[in-house]
């Protein structure tokens, strides 16, 4: 952890918990304080935290993590269809099944490392995606996605009234803000576990594998079981995230497993800062914010935003910014990746660290400044 103030894990957890639970308050001014996006922040936060446990700690870059997300979603929807609309069994089954998939894929993929490992995971995920989209349609409902229907058995629930039932936790409906708070609690739990893993001897061993696997092996240390454990835990996080996507919105589509979805979580983690506790969360937040808020801007909205400018200037500004929002939001995302990677290789977290070091520097006398900065760099 690179923020010296937050030495105590319990302080970190307390601040984190408060920050997550008050999210509706501080997200509203930036236009992101509505349930669906906040749910997405939490869900992809979990996904990225889990991915970071593998990539950040061991350096193994999985390019097929979305497959566990998809498995989690399909399992959850099937649990809603066959058993009950209660979300707990769905979440549990999703995590378990994603874990089983992770054991199989991990066992095979971890026989190789480096780019070979990446390609293996990518190949498994693409095979799953292609099959789910086409021949496995009876199981996945293909392009349309797996949905609830009126004639699902739902053996544990009584007969439903009119219309499709909603997902619920012992009677509390899981849409809207309730859904967000459920995801938020899961995020806090997930973050706590991730924190414990970072601090544990297990985590240290993983870091050791990252820095020099060969040396670990020469000391007679069998790295494979540790890597597989990390891979499975990471896959279970993805399964949890997938099940939460189904909890807040009971539909599971094959495109969740596409390589672009796997790529997305890689980008989130690196953008935020791989190997840091908070980085993946920042990355997930930034990408989802772009996808939902920037893509929805249109010229009309831009004119409202820049209405304070004189007319001629307003038109110029709107014309220029218009290229980067709405249908141009991909362009902004691409530029952002480049800028962050070129100037801030450690991701957003490094940006924050540098900024705070700079601010500290201002408050100290110029003599101490250099010392402080160099100390920060250590």
């Amino acid at each position, binding site marked *: 952890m690179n923020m010296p103030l937050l030495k105590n894990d319990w302080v970190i957890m307390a601040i984190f918990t408060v920050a997550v*639970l*008050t999210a*509706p*308050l501080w997200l*509203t001014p930036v*236009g992101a*304080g*509505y*349930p*669906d*996006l906040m749910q*997405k922040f939490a869900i992809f936060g979990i996904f990225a935290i889990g991915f970071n446990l593998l990539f950040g700690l061991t350096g193994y870059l999985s390019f097929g993590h979305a497959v566990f997300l998809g498995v989690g979603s399909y399992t959850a929807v099937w649990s809603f269809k066959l058993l009950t609309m209660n979300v707990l069994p769905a979440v549990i089954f999703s995590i378990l099944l994603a874990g089983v998939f992770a054991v199989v894929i991990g066992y095979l993929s971890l026989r190789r490392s480096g780019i070979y490992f990446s390609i293996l995971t990518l190949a498994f995920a693409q095979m799953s995606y*292609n099959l789910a*989209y*086409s*021949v496995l*349609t009876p199981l996945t*409902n*293909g*392009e*349309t*996605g797996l*949905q609830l229907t*009126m004639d699902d058995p739902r053996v544990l629930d009584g007969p439903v*009234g*009119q*219309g*499709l039932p*909603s997902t619920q936790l012992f009677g*509390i*409906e899981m*849409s*809207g*803000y*309730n859904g967000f*708070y459920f995801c938020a609690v899961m995020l806090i739990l997930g973050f706590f576990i991730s924190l414990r893993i970072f601090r544990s001897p297990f985590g240290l061993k993983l870091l050791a594998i990252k820095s020099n696997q060969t040396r670990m092996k020469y000391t007679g240390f069998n790295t494979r079981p540790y890597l597989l454990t990390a891979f499975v835990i990471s896959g279970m996080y993805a399964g949890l995230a997938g099940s939460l*996507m189904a909890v807040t*919105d009971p*539909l599971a*589509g094959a*495109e*969740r497993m596409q390589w672009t979805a796997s790529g997305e979580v890689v980008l989130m983690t690196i953008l935020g800062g791989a190997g840091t506790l908070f980085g993946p969360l920042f990355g997930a937040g930034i990408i989802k914010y772009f*996808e*939902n808020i920037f*893509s*929805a801007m*249109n010229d*009309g*909205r831009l004119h409202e935003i820049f209405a304070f400018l004189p007319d001629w200037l307003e038109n110029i500004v709107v014309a220029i910014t218009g290229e980067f929002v*709405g*249908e141009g*939001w*991909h362009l902004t995302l691409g530029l952002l990746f480049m800028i962050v990677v070129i100037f801030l290789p450690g991701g957003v977290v490094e940006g924050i660290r540098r900024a705070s070091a700079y601010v500290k520097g201002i408050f100290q006398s110029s003599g101490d400044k250099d010392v402080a900065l160099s100390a920060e760099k250590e």
Partner: protein
Amino acid sequence: MSDDKSKTSELSRRGFIKVGAAALTAANMPMFFVKDAWAAKDFRNNPGNAGSVKFGFNVPQTGAYADEGADELRAYKLAVKHINGEGDGGMLNTMKPLTLKGNGILGKKLEYVTGDTQTKSDAARASAKRMIEKDGVVMITGGSSSGVAVAVQGLCQEMGVIFMAGLTHSNDTTGKDKRRYGFRHFFNAYMSGKALGPVLKEEMGTDRKAYHLTADYTWGWTQEESIKNTTEALGWQTTAAVKTPVGAGDFSQYITPVLNSGADVLILNHYGKDMINSLTQAVQFGLRDKQVNGKNFEIVVPLFSRLMAQGAGENIKGILGTTNWNWSLQDEGSKAFVKSFGQEYGFPPSMAAHTCYVQALLYANAVEQAGTFYPPEVIKTLEGFKFDGMGNGPTEYRAEDHQCFKDVLVVRGNQNPTSQFDLLQVQKIVPRSEVEYDAKIFGGELGPYEV
């Protein structure tokens, strides 16, 4: 259920964050405390006494259908203008019966928000949720694929907001996956098959052997099935039906087996990029110059659009297919729409633009006629609504499945285009009576009015 969904009761459960609750309640105050004067009860995103009301235009802005999405958005913006009484009024001048007055909807100014579906179910639903939860839209419309349409329609049913589907051609949208809150103006694969039948018989006879290449997903399958039913009823044989992966790019390995299969018709159940690629490559393999069984080899593309014709270039010439609408139609409604669209943007609208424009108008008109935004009343007004003057002749929104029934166009790639837009030539307008079917054949259930 609807009580549970209103934000007040949800907020009261969360005692542990009173501050947030208070702030949010204050922010949302006008939305749910002010009851609509006409409505029997409150509903989601009730505009109440607000002076304006919002539509959500959910179209693909990135990905393979981005051009189609851009055209849909143009049409929607035009519809908003016309509903608000700006511009030349477009189809408001030709639509019958018309309740809209050209002063917005029920006197409220119409505004809109936009979103990107990326032609992905998840992204489309996320975008629709944003529109419902954050922007407070009363209606969502748009889309350029059946997967997205079905996904968003399901969401809208749960949320109690009406969805007016854009371009979606699968039978499922108003069949097995139909919803009370979803409406489709566009035609479907079954109608394409029905409409093509007589023309195929006329052009190619009753003794033909067909070879299908089908995009391997739900829409492809329903179209293959519909076309097969039609052609087999004509007496044609089906030599083979081969599934191709979506986005295959190079289709050569699927086309070469056609050469020696003994088939004399190739039916391409592909859309968008897949269709452009498979058609281009099939023509390269010389299929169109071929003679089989003493007949000219023919290619049929059951679903066409002008944008796809543009991508296929020369290869589209002479190919038969169906469309929902084409800008060269000469009825009053089409002329009025093409004129205002053309004057606004400098080129004619695509069929995606047409169906989206009409959908926006139909919803607005239904609200005006029902006298309320309360969805169950609006739905009841749209169900069984008969109208004319919107480009497809007398049309009816069938109550049983929310599918529009209207004439279907059989078109042919134009051999001698007179201009750069003149790519499709209307071969035959197949009357509505020939494409009608019993709503029961596809199953499905609409679900309740109240959610």
